[in-house]
């Protein structure tokens, strides 16, 4: 019995430890991560969303930066039916212009907002941010209200490996960008670790 208790305690301790705790402090220019920020001046993505239970949703995502520097994001299905219309304001604000009733739930909206903020490299406060490293990668860390956003590059800081939205202990969302041409990435993948919710974007040439 004592052994059982002990081993359970060990298990709990092990599961509570952070995947980031072995990272070492690193020197570097925190702001340089911005060079990987995708150019969303005007881009159209074919979009696929896979949700728990094998459900699948597809459509077109238009991302456009308006003259006032706000970024609008409109997701509609192939036939033109709009699912949502979001605005990311230059001052960090966020506005929902439209969302269909079935998706109009706060957790859904907040998840989408945070996922896209991670990819757009918003909410990066250089005064609270810091850098870490391990044997293979550099970590640009920007603490958020809860947890932090991690941008992980190669050791030289010349290649963005992946982006992570994390709790204090482990990543809850991972995102990757691929095939970057003129600052615009041809593909973007966003994947949740705690449950099945994956977003895949593939750029459409217009």
């Amino acid at each position, binding site marked *: 019995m004592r052994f059982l208790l002990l081993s359970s305690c060990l298990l709990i301790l092990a599961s509570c430890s952070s995947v980031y705790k072995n990272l070492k402090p690193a020197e570097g220019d925190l702001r340089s991560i911005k060079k990987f920020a995708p150019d969303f001046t005007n881009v159209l993505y074919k979009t696929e969303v896979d949700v728990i*239970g094998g459900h699948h949703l597809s459509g077109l995502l238009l991302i456009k930066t308006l003259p006032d520097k706000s970024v609008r994001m409109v997701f509609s299905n192939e036939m033109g039916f*709009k699912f949502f219309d979001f605005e990311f304001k230059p001052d960090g604000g966020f506005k929902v212009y439209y969302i269909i009733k079935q998706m109009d739930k706060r957790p859904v909206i907040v998840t989408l907002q945070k996922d896209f903020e991670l990819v757009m490299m918003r909410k990066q406060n250089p005064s609270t941010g810091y850098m870490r490293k391990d044997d293979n990668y550099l970590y640009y860390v920007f603490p958020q209200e809860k947890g932090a956003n991690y941008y992980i590059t190669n050791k030289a800081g010349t290649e963005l490996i992946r982006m992570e939205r994390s709790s204090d202990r482990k990543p809850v969302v991972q995102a990757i960008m691929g095939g970057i041409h003129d600052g615009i990435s041809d593909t973007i993948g966003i994947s949740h670790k705690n449950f099945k919710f994956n977003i895949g974007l593939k750029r459409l040439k217009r």
Partner: protein
Amino acid sequence: MRKVIFVEEYIKSSPLERGRKGNVHWQGCVSSSGLSKQKHTPPPLSRGESRKPVLFKMMIFFVAFLCFTITAHAQHAGYTQLTDLTKFKQQFAEVAEKTNSIKSDFTQEKSLSMLSEKITSKGKFWYRKTNMLRMEYTQPFSYLMILNKDNVYIKDGQKENKVSTRSNKVFKQINKIVVDCIQGTALNSGDFKSAVYENKGTYLVSLSPVNKQLSEFFKTIEITVDKKDYSVNTIEMLEGSGDSTTLRFTNKEINANIPDALFAIK
């Protein structure tokens, strides 16, 4: 337990600024206690259950409009309003009766008013009596939708989806709309408030949804019909936001022979 913490993270976050209705939407939020219980059911999109029907529902509405427009054949002239719709309705039903199939190319234009942006896509369109429709988008993406009586099939890239309209009450209702449209009875069905206008070469049928489900998606649907052959030129679906989707039909062939295989759902 970790999942629960994650879930609560959403709930405690600051309120969102809303475009239209302020934080009234809070009432739609799920209570944290409720969420804490569903450890393996993620908060946001776990309600995929409701998602798919929504998608299909919208598609079928769309199909219903297409079918309607296929049969929306009018008489008369100049974007002046027609006062007597009896004759129009009769004509509408007559031409619908004679139209067994339609083959056409289409261009779809989604206008986003506030973004001053247009998304254009193209494809091919086939319709055959009764209740059979195939829309194949070819540019700038490939997407296939087949409606065959009680079944809907969608192919999006490598993913395929099949749904029976029988298994679902909503589909059943929508299917009724489709049939009403095809039989030319949609103008009398009570689902839309209709007005018909004419100019020299075309009729314009303006439909305003009466029921709440439909009016959530559209303010009005405007259809222009060529007077020459009673075929549909354009369908414009206007949303409350000012955005719209326009379908333009070209290279139309009425009553062409369309093989069964095109509507086959395997």
